């Protein structure tokens, strides 16, 4: 088994003889290949070549292919290579190797680098516009499905929606509370630390109140929901797509939009405002606690100051944004899920894309809302 592979050549005028010996197997393929390359490189112009395989102890497909490669180096242009001493048990294998890889390999270089770069830019632009179209299309389909539900309320998958609310809403409560609480506390601490230099400690309450209610509460919650539930939506729908479950639904006469997507989107649109409310409260609580323990602003002062500085408007501005952002997260996640192609890699790519796109669009939407509210002076 361990016989090192050998290849000896002996030239004799017109005749060139190779003697192969040892084990020509996968394990030694690298070494044999070097021997052969060497032999082919100093290719003498012999007219008749003989390859003697009598010394070979073990041969597998790798060895057989290398023998064949050695032969092909001499075959053609009037010359000829011949095999001798082929052991009976290896004959079929050698013949098999002789018949494969006959198709001419594809030649011609790939496109030049500039073309590749231009091509990539074009492709990603096309991709971008396509995904925008897909988004709008999904929005339309979901709206249509919603209208259908208003017409026939009984067709709505209520159980499924409740299950989704449990997953994206109820189960997200602890982590949302924890993170918003911590962020509220951190903002308050930073505010006190810096405002104190101007003797303006008390304005920290204004800052925390307005920031949390208008922006931070809803943004934090949306980012968490996109990472937590948006990715789950994409992964679920994607793997259902991969295993043809969605096609199966279609063939049974169900519309995947009705069965899978509408309940998910309705659930997220209901859950996010609730989470936003809870998150904002937790952040205010965290802020208040730090103001009291670190800033020496006691709770009564904090509350009365909060009452003066914020109005119901601030609270509404934050909460109005929540369902729209939720809708974006849900729609992006579902679109990406349905885009998944057959491979596991594609599933990963679309799950990542779902989270990244959702967060990006949430922030863009937040900007649009900021302009809108500034214009109507709220």
């Amino acid at each position, binding site marked *: 088994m361990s016989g090192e592979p050998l290849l000896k050549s002996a030239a004799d005028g017109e005749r060139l003889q190779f003697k192969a010996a040892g084990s020509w*197997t*996968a*394990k030694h*393929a*690298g070494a044999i*290949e070097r021997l052969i390359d060497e032999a082919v490189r100093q290719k003498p112009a012999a007219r008749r070549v003989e390859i003697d395989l009598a010394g070979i102890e073990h041969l*597998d*497909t*790798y060895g057989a*292919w*290398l023998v064949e*490669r050695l032969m092909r180096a001499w075959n053609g242009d009037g010359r000829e290579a011949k095999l001798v001493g082929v052991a009976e*048990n290896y004959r*079929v*294998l050698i013949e*098999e*190797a002789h018949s*494969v*890889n006959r*198709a001419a390999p594809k030649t011609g270089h790939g496109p030049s680098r500039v073309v590749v770069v231009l091509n990539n830019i074009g492709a990603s632009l096309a991709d971008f516009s396509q995904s925008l179209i897909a988004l709008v299309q999904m929005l339309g389909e979901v709206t249509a499905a919603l209208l259908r539900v208003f017409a026939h309320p009984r067709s709505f998958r209520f159980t499924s929606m409740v299950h989704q609310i449990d997953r994206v809403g109820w189960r997200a409560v602890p982590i949302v509370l924890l993170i918003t609480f911590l962020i509220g506390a951190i903002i308050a601490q930073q505010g006190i630390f810096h405002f104190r230099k101007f003797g303006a400690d008390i304005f920290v309450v204004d800052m925390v109140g307005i920031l949390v209610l208008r922006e931070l509460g809803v943004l934090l919650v949306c980012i968490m929901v996109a990472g937590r539930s948006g990715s789950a939506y994409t992964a679920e729908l994607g793997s259902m797509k*991969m295993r043809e479950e969605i096609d199966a639904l279609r063939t049974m006469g169900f519309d995947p939009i009705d069965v899978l997507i509408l309940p998910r989107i309705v659930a997220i649109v209901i859950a996010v405002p609730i989470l936003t409310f809870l998150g904002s409260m937790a952040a205010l609580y965290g802020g208040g606690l730090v103001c009291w323990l670190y800033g020496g602003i006691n709770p009564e002062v904090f509350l009365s100051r909060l009452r003066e500085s914020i109005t119901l408007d601030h609270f509404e501005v934050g909460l109005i944004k929540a369902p729209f952002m939720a809708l974006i997260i849900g729609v992006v996640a579902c679109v990406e899920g349905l885009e998944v*192609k*057959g*491979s*596991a*890699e*594609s599933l990963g790519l679309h799950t990542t894309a779902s989270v990244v796109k959702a967060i990006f669009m949430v922030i863009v939407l937040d900007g649009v809302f900021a302009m809108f509210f500034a214009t109507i002076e709220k």
Partner: protein
Amino acid sequence: MAEAQKEVVIRVSDLVVGFGKINVLDHVALDVYRGEILGFVGASGSGKSVLMRTVIGLLPKREGRIEVFGVDLGNVNEKERQAVERRWGVLFQHGALFSSLTALQNVQFPMREYLDLSDRMLQEVALAKLEMVGLTADVRGKFPSELSGGMTKRVALARALALDPEIVFLDEPTSGLDPISAGEFDHLIRTLQRTLGLTVFMVTHDLDSLHDVCDRIAVLADGKIIASGPMATMLASEHPWLKAYFRGERAARRRA
């Protein structure tokens, strides 16, 4: 060849495998000899895949002993185990191709890991393997999701054969293929077995495969091997299940 002279490559003795309270395999004993094609049959759900998966180490056993090439697999370190694993190839019931690699890359995957090959050699040998399992060169760049069922099976076989194994385990290689492709696949297994001197362990429900390519058949029922031997033995048996299986209506129609 007398039984005594044949070299045993897989020896399963007293094997017990179960899930929860149920023992799917109950003291199973089975020998597989070098160079034979063993057909493994049994009712759906009788534990054929479980036996195969236990032998290749994907499921834990409760009792018993599994020897492959004379190595007791219950009692080896990681390195010895890997050395044995390199010498077998597995074709899973559903292909189990890596979905993010092309057909060619799937075949190259084990080669890249285990062998020291130049890129040219990697390309050429992998193409040769695809050709040997009867695929044309244009499938090389296709991803598993773009392959038909028969092509998937063939690519999976090429991958199972990538390292020139001594044993191949095939789990229902011809299920889901049309009769012509199934016939070709049987023929292919026969040819490859001759060319490469393979030992083939084949789970199958395909009576034609059993007739045409299997040297020996082992039957699993009620968690035990109830019979093993060549087709003639199976046909002669009076065991009710064997009678129903090999001489039932479908079998009769086949011979008609």
